[in-house]
C-alpha cells in the first residue's frame, strides 16, 4: 500500500459519470471473441451460459419424455424396445435432475445473487468458470454415451445390485456414476461461491435481516448442497470402485450391503428435491412482492421456513425406502417427520397469500406462473402427505401414482416458478421485455397441458399401472387413458415451444426494458439492463429491506474503490459493515485447462484405476497455473 495509490483514489471522487464508467469498463471488460469466451470470469456471462445450457438439457430431456409417451400411447407399441426404453427413462430422469433442475437453480443464483447483494462479481470467479466447464463436460459425457448406445440403463437412482459388477455389464453404470461426480463437483463449487458471496460481499448496510428472500433461499440451498452432495459423491465413487477394482461395499456375499446404497443415495436424494424447490420458493417471494407492490408479509417467518425446511430435509430420506422393510419404529418416525414438513410449506403459502391480500396484484405473466405454482404445488403436497403414510405407499410405490406425484412437485414446485422467474428477470438479463401475449399463451398451454398429462397418471397408478415399463398388454384397462396422457403431453410440449420462441424472439427484438421495468424493490434493478460488466458504477449502500422502495428517486452509494483494479468491498458477516477492499481475479484460461485435465482424469478412470494417479499430474499443473500470481496490478499492492 503506497501513498500515491491513495492519491489516485482521491481523484476518482471527481470523475464525472461517463469517465467513471469508461474506466471501470476498461478494467472489468471481457475481451470480445473466442478468447474472451474461454477466459471470462464475469458471473453474468457464466450464469447466462449456465442457464442456457441447462435449458438445452431440459429440451433434450423433454424430447425423451415425448418418446416415452409415444411408446406408451398404445398397448404393445413397437416404437422403442425394452433395452432402449431403460436407457431413455434413465436418461430422462438423470438429465432432468442432474443436468437441468439443480444446475439451472444454481445458475440463476450465479447470475442474480451478486447483483442482488450489490457486488461486482461472485466470490471465486475462476472457480465459477471451472464449475461451468465441468458441468458441461459431465453433460456431454452422458449424452455422447447415449448417442453411442452406451448410456446408463439403471434408473436415475442406479440401485445396486442392478448397477453393480454382477448385473451391470459394460460401462453404462460407470458412465452414470462418473457423470454424478462431474455435476456434483460443479454444484459444490457453486455452492461455496454463493455462500461466500452472501457472507462477505453484501453491499454495506445489507445486514442479515435485509437480505432479499431469493438470496436467503440460495444461501440455504447452498448449505443443503454442501451437506447432501458429498453423500452421493461417496456413493457413486464406491460404486465405481466396486465395479473397477473389486471392492465390496454393496456386495452382500462379502460383508457389503445393497441397502447401504439406498441410504447414501436418498440421504442425498431427498434433500435434492429441496435443493430444487427452495430457490424456486425464493423466486416466488420476489415475484409476489413485486407484483403485489408491497413488501413481503412475514419476512422472518419466511426465512425461518426456509431454514427449517432445510433441516427437516435431512430427517426424511427413509421415506423413499418404506417398501424395503425397515424396523417399524423407524417408519413411524419418518412418516411423522415427512408430514411435519407441511408446516413450513403452509407458513410460506400463508405469507404469500397475506402479501397478496393486502396488495393490488398485477396479473402479468410472471405472476400467472406463480399462481400455477401454488395450485399444482398444493396438489403435489397433498399426494405427498398420502405417500408419506406407509400403508398407502406400500400400495402405490412402484406405480404411476408416484410418477404423477413427483412431477406435480418437481414441475409445479420448480419449473413453474422458474419459468415465471425467466419472464421476470429476462428484461434484466437482456435489456428486452418478453411478450405478454405469447407469455399468456405459453402459460395457458403449459398449465392445462401439464394437468391433463399428469393428473390421469394418479388414476393409472391406482389402477395398478407399474412405472418403468416399456409397454403393457391390451387386456389391461389402461389404454384409453394412456392415449389421452400422451396426447396431452403434446399440448404441454407446445406450450414450452411457444416459450422458447418467445425467448429467442424477445432476446433480439423485445421492447426495451429500462433499468426497472416492474418497479421492483431489490438492488439488481438499481443498475442498467443488462448490467454493465462492473455491475454497479458505485456500490450501493443499503438502509432498508426494500431499498428501491424506501427511497424511490435516490440511491445511496459508496465511493473510494479504485478503478484501475477489479476492486470490490468485503463486508462483515452480520451487519455488513465494510471491512476491506478485495481485488477480484482477472480473466484466465486456467480454469478451462483445469477442467479439461479433470475431465480427462475422470473419464479415463472409468477404464483404469491408474488414471487417478497419472491423471492428477496435469490437474496439479493446471491448478498451479491457476493460482500462480501473474504480472498484474492486483498482485502488487
Amino acid at each position: 500500500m503506497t501513498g500515491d495509490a491513495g492519491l489516485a483514489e482521491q481523484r476518482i471522487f471527481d470523475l464525472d459519470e461517463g469517465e467513471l464508467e469508461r474506466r471501470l469498463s476498461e478494467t472489468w471488460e471481457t475481451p470480445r471473441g473466442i478468447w474472451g469466451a474461454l477466459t471470462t470470469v464475469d458471473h453474468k456471462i457464466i450464469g447466462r451460459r449456465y442457464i442456457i445450457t441447462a435449458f438445452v438439457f431440459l429440451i433434450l430431456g423433454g424430447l425423451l419424455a415425448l418418446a416415452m409417451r409415444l411408446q406408451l400411447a398404445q398397448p404393445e407399441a413397437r416404437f422403442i424396445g425394452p433395452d432402449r426404453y431403460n436407457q431413455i427413462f434413465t436418461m430422462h430422469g438423470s438429465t432432468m435432475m442432474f443436468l437441468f433442475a439443480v444446475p439451472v437453480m444454481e445458475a440463476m443464483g450465479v447470475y442474480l445473487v451478486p447483483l442482488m447483494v450489490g457486488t461486482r462479481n461472485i466470490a471465486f470467479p475462476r472457480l465459477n468458470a471451472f464449475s461451468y466447464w465441468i458441468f458441461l463436460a459431465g453433460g456431454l459425457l452422458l449424452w455422447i454415451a447415449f448417442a453411442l448406445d452406451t448410456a446408463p440403463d439403471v434408473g436415475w437412482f442406479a440401485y445396486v445390485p442392478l448397477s453393480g459388477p454382477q448385473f451391470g455389464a459394460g460401462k453404462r453404470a460407470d458412465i452414470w456414476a462418473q457423470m454424478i461426480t462431474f455435476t456434483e463437483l460443479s454444484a459444490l463449487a457453486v455452492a461455496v461461491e454463493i455462500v461466500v458471496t452472501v457472507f462477505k460481499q453484501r453491499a454495506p448496510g445489507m445486514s442479515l435481516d435485509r437480505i432479499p428472500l431469493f438470496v436467503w433461499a440460495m444461501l440455504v440451498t447452498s448449505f443443503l448442497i454442501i451437506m447432501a452432495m458429498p453423500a452421493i459423491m461417496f456413493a457413486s465413487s464406491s460404486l465405481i470402485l466396486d465395479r473397477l477394482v473389486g471392492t465390496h461395499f454393496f456386495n452382500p456375499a462379502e460383508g457389503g450391503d445393497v441397502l447401504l446404497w439406498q441410504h447414501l443415495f436418498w440421504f442425498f436424494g431427498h434433500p435434492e428435491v429441496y435443493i430444487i424447490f427452495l430457490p424456486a420458493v425464493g423466486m416466488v417471494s420476489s415475484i409476489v412482492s413485486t407484483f403485489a407492490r408491497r413488501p413481503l408479509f412475514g419476512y422472518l417467518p419466511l426465512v425461518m421456513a426456509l431454514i427449517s425446511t432445510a433441516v427437516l430435509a435431512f430427517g426424511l430420506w427413509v421415506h423413499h425406502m418404506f417398501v424395503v422393510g425397515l424396523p417399524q419404529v423407524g417408519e413411524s418416525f419418518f412418516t411423522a417427520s415427512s408430514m411435519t414438513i407441511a408446516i413450513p410449506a403452509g407458513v410460506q403459502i400463508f405469507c404469500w397469500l397475506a402479501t397478496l391480500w393486502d396488495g393490488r396484484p398485477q396479473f402479468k405473466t410472471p405472476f400467472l406462473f406463480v399462481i400455477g405454482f401454488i395450485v399444482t404445488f398444493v396438489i403435489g403436497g397433498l399426494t405427498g402427505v398420502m405417500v408419506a403414510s406407509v400403508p398407502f405407499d406400500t400400495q402405490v410405490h412402484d406405480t404411476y401414482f408416484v410418477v404423477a406425484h413427483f412431477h406435480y412437485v418437481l414441475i409445479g414446485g420448480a419449473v413453474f416458478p422458474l419459468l415465471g422467474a425467466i419472464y421476470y428477470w429476462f428484461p434484466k438479463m437482456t435489456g428486452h421485455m418478453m411478450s405478454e401475449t405469447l407469455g399468456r399463451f405459453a402459460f395457458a398451454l403449459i398449465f392445462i397441458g401439464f394437468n391433463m398429462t399428469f393428473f390421469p397418471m394418479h388414476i393409472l397408478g391406482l389402477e395398478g399401472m407399474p412405472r418403468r415399463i416399456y409397454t403393457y398388454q391390451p387386456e389391461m384397462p389402461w389404454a384409453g387413458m394412456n392415449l389421452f396422457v400422451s396426447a396431452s403431453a403434446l399440448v404441454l410440449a407446445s406450450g414450452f415451444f411457444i416459450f422458447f420462441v418467445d425467448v429467442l424472439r424477445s432476446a433480439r427484438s423485445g421492447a426495451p426494458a429500462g433499468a426497472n421495468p416492474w418497479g421492483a424493490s431489490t438492488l439488481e434493478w438499481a443498475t442498467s439492463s443488462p448490467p454493465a460488466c462492473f455491475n454497479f458504477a458505485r456500490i450501493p449502500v443499503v438502509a432498508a429491506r426494500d431499498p428501491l422502495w424506501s427511497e424511490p428517486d435516490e440511491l445511496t452509494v459508496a465511493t473510494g474503490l479504485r478503478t484501475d483494479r477489479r476492486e470490490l468491498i468485503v463486508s462483515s458477516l452480520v451487519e455488513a459493515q465494510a471491512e476491506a477492499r478485495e481485488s477480484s481475479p482477472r480473466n484466465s484460461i486456467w480454469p478451462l485447462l483445469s477442467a479439461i485435465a479433470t475431465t480427462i482424469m475422470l473419464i479415463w478412470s472409468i477404464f483404469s484405476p491408474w488414471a487417478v494417479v497419472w491423471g492428477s499430474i496435469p490437474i496439479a499443473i493446471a491448478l498451479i497455473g491457476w493460482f500462480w500470481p501473474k504480472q498484474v496490478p492486483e498482485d502488487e499492492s
Partner: protein
Amino acid sequence: MKERVTLDVSKLPLHGMGTASPTWWGTLAFMLIEGSGFGLAIAVYFYLMSLAKTWPIDAPAPGLWPGTCLTVLLLASIVPNLVLSRRARQQDLRRVRIGLIVMSILGVLPLIFRAFEFTVLAVRWDDNAYGSIVWVMLGLHTTHIVTDLIDTLVLTCLMFSRHADNPRRYGDVHDNALYWNFVVAAWIPLYLCIYWVPRL
C-alpha cells in the same frame, strides 16, 4: 436514479485477513464439504460393522505402530503450524519462509509412515467390505495430506519469489495453515476407527 455518496471506503485495508478474507471462508466451506466426506466414511464403517458377524471381517486388527507414529507426528506438527500462522499474520517474511520449509518436511514425513500403514492392515481392499472401507478411509486421508503438501510446496516456492511480500500471500499462508489443522483433526476419528474400534 440520483446517487448520493454516504460512505468512503478508500481508507479500508486491501485484502483483509482471517474472517475479513473471502478465501478464509472459502477454505472453511471446503473443510465442511470434506468433513462431511470423512463423516460419511465413518458412518459407513459403523454401518458395515453393525451388519458383520465378526469385526474385522476375516482379518486380525491392524498393527498399531505405523498409524500411531503418524498420529504423534501429525499432532506434533500442529505447534510449528500455529507458529507459522502467527508469523504470517505478522507478515514476517523471514520466519514465514522458515516455517514453510519446516511444514513441507512435516508434510513428507507422515507419508512414509502412511506407506507402512497400508502394509499392516492385513486385509486387501478386494477381500471383503471391511477391507474396502479401511482402504478407502486411509486413501481419502492420504489424498488430503498429499494435496496439502503440494499446496505447501508451491506456496514455499512462491514465498521465495518476488511475489512474496504481499498481504495476499500472507493470507494464503494463513489459510493453508488452517487447512493443515483440519487434515490433522480429521485424522483423529479415523485413527480411532481403524485401529482401536477393532480392539474393543
